[in-house]
């Protein structure tokens, strides 16, 4: 009973935040609504006893990705009116995506009602069950090669992004920190002895 009330509350907040993301006029407000949506979905995951995924969602998406997102959004001078101009041309595509998503969710619910063994209701785990340890055990033993491969692909993406944006500029002044640290007083200061002058 309690669970249902809490689920209803958080689900409502999540939906409201998701509407806020697309409805608010200011991009920074949109980003903040997205943060709220992430945090509420993390709470929903916690209610599903997926505490590792829930906390990692907050850690990765809210703590790092959205911060960088905000960083970019705040720097850009986005005019929301020009963004809205194409609304009618893009609306049909949006509607198709929405219909497909609803159909998928509905099919999952429908499948569960068919009584298939794979879609059976999951029993709640015991209190001392740590799904962090379980996830780690599966990821690093059974699926270790796909996991490493995924990590490698990500690394490749990072390197590629850096290579694409790095360009050599002539006449660019660069500092060599080791040279700066190794500097001696005699290289920079010359002490001159002279008699006191008086007008």
């Amino acid at each position: 009973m309690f669970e249902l009330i809490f689920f209803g509350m958080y689900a409502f907040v999540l939906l409201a935040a998701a509407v806020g993301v697309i409805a608010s006029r200011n991009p920074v407000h949109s980003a903040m609504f997205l943060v709220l949506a992430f945090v509420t979905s993390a709470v929903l995951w916690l209610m599903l006893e997926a505490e590792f995924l829930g906390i990692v969602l907050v850690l990765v998406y809210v703590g790092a990705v959205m911060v960088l997102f905000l960083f970019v959004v705040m720097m850009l001078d986005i005019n929301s009116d020009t963004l809205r101009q194409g609304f009618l041309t893009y609306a049909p595509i949006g509607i198709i995506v929405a219909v497909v998503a609803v159909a998928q969710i509905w099919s999952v619910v429908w499948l569960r009602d068919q009584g298939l063994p794979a879609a059976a209701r999951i029993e709640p785990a015991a209190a001392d069950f740590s799904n962090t340890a379980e996830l780690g055990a599966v990821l690093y033993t059974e699926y270790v090669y796909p996991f490493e491969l995924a990590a490698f692909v990500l690394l490749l993406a990072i390197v590629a992004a850096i290579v694409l944006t790095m360009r050599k500029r002539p006449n660019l002044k660069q500092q060599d920190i080791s040279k700066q640290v190794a500097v001696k007083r005699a290289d920079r200061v010359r002490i001159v002895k002279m008699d006191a002058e008086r007008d």
Partner: protein
Amino acid sequence: MFESLFTAIEGFLLSFLPELVVWLVIKAAQIVAVMLTVIICVAFLTLAERKIIGYMQNRIGPNRVGPRGLLQPFADVIKLLMKEVLVPAKSSRFLYIIAPLLTLVPALATWAVIPLFPGFAIADINAGLLYVLALTSLGVYGVILAGWATNSKYALLGAMRSAAQIVAYEIAMGFALVGVLMASKSLNLGDIVEAQQGGVTSWFWLPLLPLFVVYFISGLAETNRAPFDVAEGESEIVAGFHVEYSGAAFAMFFLGEYANMILISALTAVMFLGGWESVFAGWSFLIGTPLEFLMMPGLFWLAAKTCFFLFCFLWFRATFPRYRYDQIMRLGWKVFIPITIVWIAVEGVMVYLKVGPWSV
């Protein structure tokens, strides 16, 4: 001593209230107690900061309000609360007002999982370390939103600097905690403290020395304290993200910053200096002498270690000049992250070969 008190109170309440209500009452009481303690500590930390830095610079520091200036924090609080909260005309009003709260709330909420004395944390959860990481990474929102909502160039510059800096140092911090996780084999902070049982040499600071140093310095950078306080940078961008804040809203930022300092100090103590474990834990010749009580673990030791790190925070502020911004970035990305990655690899080998205190 605390446990018997708790069970007595719990038994008394259970005699006339349903179980759920008793649980709520006890948790609420614990939360209020910890929060009030942290806030009072913040008040006296501000005084300690001015006094300690004063003595380091051959001054006396505040000594007018109360005996030896002890009531100074209360005078400051009353002054700040009486002042008007100005909201700039072109600011984003709602975000401007909740931004200070967003720095304060994560700093207080993290205390829920910190083991205060043997067997006690407000919420003794299994994923404690992850919870700590997630919440400390939320603190940056207050700074960024304050900077943006103020609608001022100085504030925006401060927010930008802070965002880039915190994202950079969070990675090093996370890697340092991976090392702690590997050594203690648990994400539960209480278990992490228990894994460090057995005196000074078995605390994690020794086998994880590079991670310990990296974690504390990254903590310094995360709290925007000197020498990493470019987000405020009063010599370049006035006061950075809180340039337009006044009165109670400014007091919130102040409270948040100092609460974060206490939090980072407590976390460093828990993860690398054995939390509530006694400094004299392994000294068997003390048994039977009047000094035997020194070997008992307890809240006192956690407080003492936290105070040590807080002193370091103030000491560094009085000692080091502010880092230049590009040097901060270089330190975070090119020095700390490689150090932590190398040490995690070294630690992996140590765990595999069963050398080190955790193999016992």
